[in-house]
């Protein structure tokens, strides 16, 4: 199965004067999302790197309106904007929330759960760089097992596995949710375009490397992101109504997680047995995901291979 002629809109709704670091996964993620969503959109951004990236009070790096909101309010803020615009007759405008992993997995989860359960007509994006990067790399519940952060120092690195936010959202039975990765822009844009045409609560979990926070050179952030999916650390998939699973990418051959871990300074302290433990967790998670795909489709043969994305 090979899909030629991917359509990626040429419109740029993110100006070049934004304030992101070099190699920022979160900035590239916004660029791709906006290509899919278009200008009839408004975004609400809680406290996160993007509070800074979008520009200070006199500027706006986006070609759509940006509403800045409090840390824990991204989902309800989007729902409030949607309600206000609807009452003014602007029913077709896409309203989306754009939050980091801290604002989503941790402090914002109550508001997300409420909005998801009520099936608010919004799209929620979390750009997940696996720690509180804007405040200086503190651990969040999205930080993976074994990682260094400034609050999980090398002598006592993160000792809990990453919270499974996707299953939490799935438990709400929302119409559409997907994982996407900045290293797979065609898949990213296809999914966002698909979500745009669906009504109700839609959720995107974006894998977005952070060079300073992961201690990687800024020119390998795409490579790190690509390896995360190739090693099954961050599989790509969609869930509809919390029960229909579709895996979007089947790695060609098993690439060991060590390939992903060894290029990042935040994992440098890991011992061989730590890497084995991570490999075991990754295998279990991916197997469980494949079972859900198989339960939905009765086969694994329809999962696209890497050629699909060439």
């Amino acid at each position, binding site marked *: 199965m090979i899909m030629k002629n991917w359509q990626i809109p040429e419109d740029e709704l993110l100006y070049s004067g934004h304030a992101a670091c070099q190699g920022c996964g979160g900035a590239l993620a916004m660029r791709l999302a906006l290509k899919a969503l278009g200008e009839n959109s408004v975004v609400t951004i809680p406290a996160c790197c993007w509070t800074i990236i979008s520009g200070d009070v006199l500027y706006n790096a986006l070609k759509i309106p940006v509403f800045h909101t409090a840390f824990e309010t991204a989902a309800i*803020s989007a729902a409030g904007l949607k309600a206000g615009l609807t009452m003014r007759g602007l029913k077709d405008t896409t309203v989306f929330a754009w939050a980091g992993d801290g604002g989503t997995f941790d402090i914002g989860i109550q508001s997300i759960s409420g909005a998801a359960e009520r099936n608010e007509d919004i799209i929620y994006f979390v750009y997940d760089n696996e720690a509180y990067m804007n405040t200086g790399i503190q651990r969040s519940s999205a930080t993976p097992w074994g990682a260094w952060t400034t609050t999980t120092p090398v002598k006592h690195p993160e000792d809990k596995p990453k919270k499974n936010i996707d299953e939490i959202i799935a438990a709400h039975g929302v119409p559409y949710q997907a994982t996407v990765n900045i290293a797979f822009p065609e898949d990213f844009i296809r999914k966002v375009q698909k979500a745009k045409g669906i009504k109700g609560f839609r959720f995107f979990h974006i894998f977005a490397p952070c060079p300073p926070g992961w201690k990687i050179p800024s020119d390998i952030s795409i490579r790190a992101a690509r390896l995360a999916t190739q090693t099954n650390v961050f599989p790509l998939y969609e869930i509809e109504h919390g029960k229909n699973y579709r895996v979007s990418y089947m790695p060609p051959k098993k690439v060991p997680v060590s390939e992903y871990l060894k290029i990042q300074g935040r994992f440098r302290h890991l011992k061989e047995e730590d890497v084995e433990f991570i490999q075991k967790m990754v295998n279990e998670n991916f197997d469980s995901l494949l079972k859900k795909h198989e339960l939905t489709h009765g086969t694994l043969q329809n999962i696209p291979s890497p050629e699909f994305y060439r």
Partner: protein
Amino acid sequence: MSVKKVLTGNHAVSYGAMVSRVQVISAYPITPQTQVVELLSEMVADGLLKAIFVNVESEHSAMSACVSASAAGARAFTATSAQGLALMHEMLHWAAGDRLPIVLADINRAMAPPWTIWTDQNDSLSQRDTGWMQVYVESNQEAFDSIILAYKVAEQIYLPCMVVLDAFVLSHTSEPIEIYDQEKIDEFLPPYKPMVTIEPGKPIGYGALAGPDTYMEFRYKMQKAMEKAVSVFEKEGKLFGEMFGRTYDLVEPYMLDDAEYVIVTVGAVTSTARVAIQELRKKGEKVGLLKLRVVRPFPFEKLRNILKGKKKVAIIDRNISFGHHGIFYEEIKSALYPLQDRPIVYGYIAGLGGRDVTVGDIIGIYEDMKKRETLDEAIWRGVKL
């Protein structure tokens, strides 16, 4: 044509929101407020009110929904009490800092612990410095009227407004309310047309990062808006009187012209104080009452003009700033300080957590003030030890 209905304070607020044609309501249940939004959700479901009701999972989200809906250009409303208002605190700052004319009805309820559901003013006064205007009402009619007035003022100066009424004393007590002709209300309060809105095609950043070179001007402009709100309240209160027969000012004097002694009240206790003043007047006492209605913006000039030259003033505070005094006592005393002929001011803490403040209590406060010679502060009334 106007109609009369017998309504509780809570339902008077619901009707106030309905006739103000609010467009987005977001709320969370809490006693004693809940009836306000119960009735509003029925009004929306029945099509009496064209609005979206967002049934959120917390008060924090309720205020957040109002903030965003208002930023998108809709007229937004919510109601809450005590713990709910405290949970909104962060977003109250957001509403004011974003200059959004949201109206909130706070049914005054004392703060826990210990758990309580009865009235005092510490919940709303804990939010005093968030940049919200605050109006305290004495009756259910005033609650209804004040919601309409709150939108009229808020939408001119771009600051949110809290209308505050006492738990149970007003919220669950029925009184006859005059509901004015909707056409006249629409004439008084036209649709909300904000200067700036979040909408597609206008790629602005709203509430973005402000450094030391830009932040202070935002705060200066909020203060200037508050100062302007004094005259806007006065102007709109007069116009309200011309159109509907009930005039409102920021303060309301009662039997004060020849008074040497003054009692100052805020909220429903004012009605009780009116009776006390009548009884004292029958005995020949030269005492009057000053009701403080709008406490943010604070009506400095009006208070000074009324209280200058009086002998003594007793302020009844249904609140306390721990380690200081009653909050209205602090504020009124400091407002009077620049006067040459300022009266002696005493502060009485009474009625916390819904303890009844009776006509007898207020007469007792008057007698205490009259004979007191030392400059005492934070005088407690009715404490059982």
